[in-house]
Every structure is written in C-alpha cells, then in structure tokens.
C-alpha cells in the first residue's frame, strides 16, 4: 500500500513535466491543426545548447535553464519558418513530413556539437530527499512539480487574461472567424508556436536536470512522450494535456515498478492505441471528436 502511494506520488511529480511537454504540443496543434514532429528535437536543441554552455563555461542551473528555453524558442522559430509558415491550409501531411526532416537535421547537428552519446547535464538541486512519514520526495522532483504548476498557471493566465491569449483562443476556436474580427492571425500563430517551444524547453530542462544527463535520443523521447500525453488527454484540449501528462506519469511509475522499463513503454503505447481505438476523443477532448462524428452522421 505504501509502495502504491509512493509510486503514485513519484509518477505525479514526473507526470507534471510530461504535462508541460503536452501543453506545448497541444498549443501548437490547437492553433496550427498540424502535428509538429520536430517538437522534441527543438527542445533537444535548447538542451544541447545549455549542456554545451554548462560544459564550456561552467554556469549554474538557472542560466542553463534560461539558455535551454531560449534555444528551444529559437529552434522553434526555425521550424515554424521552414515547415509551417510556407504551407497553406490542408497541407498537414506536408508540414508533418517537413518537420520530420528538420528533426533529422537537429539530431545530427546535436551530435556534431557534442559527439559523445551521453553528456552530463547540470542537476537542478542536490540534497537528501525529504522524508514525510513513510514517504520520501526527491527535491528535484518536488521542484519539478512546483515549476511545472507555476508554468501551467502562467500559461493559463496569459491565455485568459491578455489580448494575445484571447487571440490564441480565438484562433484555436475558428481561424477564419479570428481573421474576420481582426486578430493578427499570422503573428499570433508564430508567437504561439514559439511560446509552445519555450514551454517545451522548460519541460525539457526539468527532465534533463532530474536525470542529470542527456543523449541524442532525447528528441525522439520528448516527441513520443508529449504525443502520448497529448493524445491521452484529448487532442487540442489544454486541460486535457495536463490531465494526460499526469495520468501518463502515474501509469508509467506503476508499470515500471511492477514490470520494468520495457513493459512500461509497451503499456504506455498500448494505452494510447486503446484510447484511440475506443475513445478517439481522449479523456477531455470528447467535445470536438463528438462534434465531428455528429457532423458526419448528419451528412
């Protein structure tokens, strides 16, 4: 029983970073209606920049975090310009493949900068875990939860209490209508894209810092985890991304403890497959999927 609760707590803390990953992913999908496969590699570009600076200049955790976020945002701008901006509506597949091409570019560029497979990443905090009764909490995981929650709250605030956020939500609801009421759609799309990559960068920093290492596989890892969390919660739903991320973290923690890492990944993918096959709307995205289905039935 104690193990059960401990695993759930650990899972929720790690899940908070998955939630942040999924939040960025969903923001891109919601505004663009396209999948950015290069999302994970974009984050990796930032993380490699941070690692490189930490190794060469010996800077601390906070400047590294800023570098990671800035690097991810910059790489995101590159992806947006190359893979999303040039294509009009209805070219979702083209954008997807194009973002995959950029994925390969970033991955190779990262290995050229730091040729070693495994690179040390500066940890966020060092120190003994806090014990609370029978449970213990790793400091960096706690900090991960706090930072992720703060970031999610900040994103919520930006989306709901600023003019830019209103624009983003309008674009998510209906791009054409947003254009008609005077939202600068193109600028909003670019800004939302860059913001999403910055959020992803923060998530990437938290994860890399708690693992204290980074490999060229990180890009693929971040894309797949973000994808699963996003789809679990429901495509295009921002609260769904948070729920999906937390759920994925908790499920993975239990599966890892019970069956080991291989079966953990098998369960994560199996869950995604089952959700898609049986509840295509995800946990919180049912509204949109239901609408589409209703529309099809009516036709």
């Amino acid at each position, binding site marked *: 029983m104690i193990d059960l609760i401990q695993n759930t707590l650990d899972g929720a803390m790690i899940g908070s970073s998955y939630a942040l990953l999924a939040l960025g992913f969903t923001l891109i999908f919601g505004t663009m209606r396209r*999948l950015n*496969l290069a999302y994970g590699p974009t984050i990796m570009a930032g993380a490699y920049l941070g690692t490189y600076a930490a190794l060469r200049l010996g800077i601390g955790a906070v400047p590294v975090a800023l570098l990671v976020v800035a690097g991810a945002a910059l790489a995101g701008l590159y992806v947006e310009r*190359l*893979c999303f901006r*040039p*294509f009009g509506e209805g*070219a*979702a*597949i*083209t954008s*997807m*493949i*194009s973002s*995959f*091409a*950029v*994925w*390969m*570019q970033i*991955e*190779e*560029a990262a290995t*050229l900068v730091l040729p070693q497979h495994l690179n040390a990443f500066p940890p966020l905090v060092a120190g003994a875990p806090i014990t609370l009764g029978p449970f213990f909490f790793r400091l960096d995981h706690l900090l991960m939860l706090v930072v992720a929650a703060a970031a999610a709250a900040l994103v919520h605030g930006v989306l709901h209490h600023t003019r830019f956020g209103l624009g983003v939500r309008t674009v998510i609801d209906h791009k054409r209508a947003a254009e008609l009421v005077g939202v600068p759609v193109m600028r909003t799309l670019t800004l939302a894209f860059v913001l999403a990559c910055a959020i992803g960068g923060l998530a990437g920093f938290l994860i890399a810092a708690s693992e204290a290492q980074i490999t060229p596989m990180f890009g*693929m890892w971040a894309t*797949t985890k973000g*994808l*699963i969390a996003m*789809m679990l919660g429901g*495509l295009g739903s921002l609260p769904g991304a948070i729920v999906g991320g937390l759920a994925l973290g908790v499920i993975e923690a239990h599966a890892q403890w019970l069956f080991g890492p*291989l*079966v953990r*990944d*098998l369960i994560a*993918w*199996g869950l*995604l*497959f089952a959700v*898609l*096959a049986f509840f*295509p709307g995800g946990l919180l995205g049912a509204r949109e999927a239901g609408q589409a289905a209703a529309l099809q039935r009516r*036709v």
Partner: protein
Amino acid sequence: MDDHLVGVLCNIGIISFVALSAYVLLLAGEVSFGQQAFFAMGAYAAGMATAVLRWPLAPALLVGALIGALTAAIVGRATLRLTGLYFAMATLAFAEMLRIAFELFVWQVDVDGSLVGPKGTDGFGDIRYLFENEITPAQYMAGVYVLLALVLAGFAAIDRSRFGRMLRQAGADPLLAELQGVSVVRVRLVAAAAAGALAGLGGGLYAHLLTYVEPGNFNIMLGVHSLAYGLIGGLGTVLGPVLGVLIDIGLLESSRLFEGYRMIVFGGLVAVLLIVRPRGLLDERAVHWISSCVKGLAGALAARRLDRSLRRR
C-alpha cells in the same frame, strides 16, 4: 558489379517495398506512421520460417507477406474508422507496441547443434538461407528486382481498374465517394491489407539480405522515412516512392558525399523541396507533362514513319 553496389541496389529495392506500402495508404487518404510494423512481421516470420523451420525461401516470403496482410487487416479493422492524425498516431502506437513486443520475444530452437531464433533485444541472427543455398548477392538482387517489377506492374494494372478508381476516390474525397456508393472503410481495409502484404514481403527480403535483424531496425524512423519517400519522390505515380528511396539511399547514404552531416543536408533538402513541390518531384502535373511528352514524341515518330512510308509509295 562490386559487392558494395549490389548491396546498395538490394537495399534500395527492399526499402522500396515499405515505401510503396505507405504510398498505398496515402492513395487511400490515410497517413500511416506504422508500416514498419508489418515490415518487422514479415522479417521475423520469413526469417523464422527458413532459419528455424528450415523452409525454402519462396514459401517463407509468402508467409511473411500473408502475416503482414493479416496483421494489417486486423489493425485496420480497429483503426480505419479514424482519420488523419488519429489514424497516424494509432498506427504509430501499434508499431511501437510491436517493436517492444519483439524486444521481449524469445523463441530459440536447437538447429544442428546451435540455438537459432529471435532473442529479444539481442535480435535475431543466423538467417543464413542465402549463404547455405549458395545464392550470390547478384542473384538475390535480381530476385528482389523481379518482385519489385511485378509489384509495380500490379500497381499499373490496379490503377486502371475499378478498384483503383475507388481507391483514389476514397483518398481524394471520402464523403463524395461514400455518396457515390463506394464503401470507403472497405476500400481502405483492402488497401491496408495490401499495404501490409507489401511491407511483409519487403521485410522477409530484408531479413534474408542482412541475415540479422533486431527490433531497433523497425523503429519510428523507418516508418516516417517510408512515408517521406513517397512525398519526396512524388504522389502522382507509383514510381514516386521508388524515386524517393533512390534519392535518399542511392544518392546520399551510399555516395558518402556528405559524410558526417548527411542528415543536415538531406533534411534541409526535403524541407525546401516540400516548399517548392508539396506533392513531391513526380506530382500529378509532372506525370501528366511527362506522359503528354511521351505521347507527343510517340505521335511525332508515328507521323514521321507514316510520312516516310507514304513517300516511299
């Protein structure tokens, strides 16, 4: 021909199968990230058939293709009512599940005093049929290309058939197709099974060429690559995916022209190419232009021949 060239050509031929497999689904209007799953099924099934069960190559390849088709049909039944991104994700999820399942799958059998068979993450080695039966790489390559030519001929035949039209219709506008009495789900299911068979066949050929496969060979990279080949080469003709494979493996991987930063060059090339030609090099317009050129040329030749024969009289 030297061995390196034969190896590269074999590889191009084999990867073309999985690229064509993704292309079939693109025609039907579905994007699959998971054709590598059926490629893996074919590789493992055909490999086990020759290496463990000591079957000859041809029935082993056939079984690989059949298992690919069967799995694809079962997965298709569960997922084909999804569209767009949902379908793409479902296929990816299935492929990753299968890859991990192969990492857990151990089935080793004593064959002539040594253990043969899939061994989880350590992979599946000693698929030595070609070696044991003294088939040279050049002979194998010829076999691969004969099969590929048959498949391409089959595509050409289907393109002119009623089913081919239904397939393109379902891909271009599923709603309109449905209104005209085409059962889109059924057409897509047949397409998915055919795509699974193609990938399974390619997988069997792949396992026998390499003699060793491991689950890591069949990851998302292979899936997205095979999808990308069609988009680079062009969606207008069945030769498009083959052209895509030729450009990537033939030109960039094998020439070692950009050793060390090949992916940066290839990735940039693809991204820019897609901006300039969103439906690939051989898109519908290019195909139309080429075919009208060929027809024009043939017409001109025929006219000249007629002219000459008239003059002779």
